[in-house]
């Protein structure tokens, strides 16, 4: 079985892939994240669960700087996200530098966000050609291989509108992988899917985890979190309430809030 990821970029050291120190985020008066501290190790599948509005998607979007954090520090692979530190001063990164940081971080969205005017193959080729300046031939070859691997090798010429939700999400995963990221972010990747289509997407994610990809997954799929996850964090109201191994947290929650949440979703 060929692997989804040809050669995963080895982490620079044994250091955490993602490190959050007291991360806060406010939108105007709304205080969404209220001090998040956590570490995600390389090759780890890190699951974020919690009720809607708990800030888990916002935190995920801070990791690739789609949202600017209001306080604290956030590092990906040892690099400060969105800023440069000189002495005790922080400098905002320029647009191009932010874009360069994002290249190595793949993201999969709840609503797929495929480019509707491009075929599946063109969607997967777009970023390597436009961002990395890869030749079309090389990009096409890899796109074909990735689409084969997510089981869509015969759908390369289809436009997103001609694909089912599950197929679209698998194309979206292939599109993110085409940039050969060192970290993958999944923002509720199966929440917009019909129940019978959830499995095909989770299967692809499971393969990816087996290949050793570092993954942060915001999800409501407790079964997936239990089987595939290495760590799990339960968030509520902008703080980490409980964390640990998924089996422990899901079967033996310690906090009342975790208990009441799990009793509703399990």
């Amino acid at each position: 079985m060929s692997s989804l990821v040809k050669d995963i970029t080895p982490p620079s050291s044994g250091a955490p892939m993602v490190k959050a120190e007291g991360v806060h985020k406010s939108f105007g008066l709304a205080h969404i994240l209220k001090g998040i501290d956590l570490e995600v190790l390389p090759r780890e599948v890190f699951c974020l669960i919690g009720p809607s509005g708990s800030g888990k998607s916002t935190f995920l979007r801070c990791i690739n700087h789609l949202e600017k954090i209001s306080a604290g520090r956030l590092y990906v692979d040892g690099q400060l996200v969105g800023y440069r530190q000189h002495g005790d001063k922080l400098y905002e990164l320029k647009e191009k530098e932010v874009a360069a940081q994002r290249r190595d971080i793949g993201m999969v969205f709840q609503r797929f966000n495929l480019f509707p005017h491009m075929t599946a193959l063109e969607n997967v080729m777009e970023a390597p050609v436009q961002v990395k300046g890869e030749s079309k031939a090389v990009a096409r070859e890899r796109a074909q291989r990735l689409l084969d691997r997510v089981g869509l090798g015969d759908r390369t010429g289809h436009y997103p509108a001609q694909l089912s939700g599950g197929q679209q999400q698998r194309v979206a995963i292939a599109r993110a992988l085409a940039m050969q990221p060192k970290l993958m972010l999944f923002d509720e990747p199966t929440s917009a899917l019909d129940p019978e289509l959830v499995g095909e997407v989770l299967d692809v994610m499971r393969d990816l985890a087996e290949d050793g990809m570092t993954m942060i997954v915001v999800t409501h799929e407790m079964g997936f979190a239990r089987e595939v996850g290495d760590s799990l964090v339960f968030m509520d109201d902008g703080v980490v309430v409980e964390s640990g191994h998924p089996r422990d947290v899901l079967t033996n929650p310690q906090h009342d809030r975790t208990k009441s949440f799990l009793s509703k979703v399990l």
Partner: protein
Amino acid sequence: MTDTVDKTPAASVPPEQIKAIPVRHYGRWVAAAVVIAVLVLIGVAFSNANINYGVVPDYLTDGTILSGAWHTLYISVLAMALGLVLGVILAIMRMSSNPVTSTVAWFYVWFFRGTPVLVQLLLWYNIALVFPILNLGFYKDEMNQVMTPFLAALLGLGLNEAAYMSEIVRAGIQSVDEGQTEASHALGMTQGKTLRRVILPQAMRVIVPPTGNEFINMLKTSSLAYVVQFNELIKRATDISSTSLAVVEMYFVASIWYLLLTTIFSIVQYYIERRYARGSSRSLPPTPLQRLRRNLSQWASFRRPEVAR
């Protein structure tokens, strides 16, 4: 078990077709008769009018009229191109987070959309009243020499069009889902690349139909350029009628040319819209040309077996 045995033969018997007397739509017959009667009356009135229709075909391909049609066509294309480019720039300015550029863009649209094109054309033509000398540093001349009828028409029509186009472009860009921008940014694309590769191609679907509308409007609005002595169709038609005394007839000639030009561009627009509809629907309907070709090949395949026999 017996159920399945019973059902199988039953299914093979075709159900009895319903034979009912259809509802009579008497109102439709009355409406059709009224409409036809009105059309006949209009036709009779026009044919009995004091208009010399005989001269219309003669002047249709007259050299002066042809040159007028050509002037109308090229001033429309150039003014539209100017409007389109400036419109995109204004739309981006309007949406930028820089308060100065967005206010200037707003003001531009407010002014150029809020005053008549006729006034704007005349203003450009008489701009020498404000700037008697044009001094660009490397180039200096009297404004009256520079502001030819062509330039006045181009600026008057083009700058006015830009105001409308900027609103159309802005609507198109804003119609694209924000998730598209996020997905592009997450892949490491910069703002400019996102706009060019992802947003504008999708915005085109919303931009093209009203732009086609604008262009067809422009073909006709360009007739106002006669006030700045630009030799477009209406000016040429008027020139002829002042000597030939066939006034209304010449307007008929011009109108036929306008109809011809707008028809051609309606067809062009249809094909441009199809181009930007890629991926928007499961399958596009065939073009009239494709339909014709398919019908011909079907017709041919119907004929063939007979030939074989």
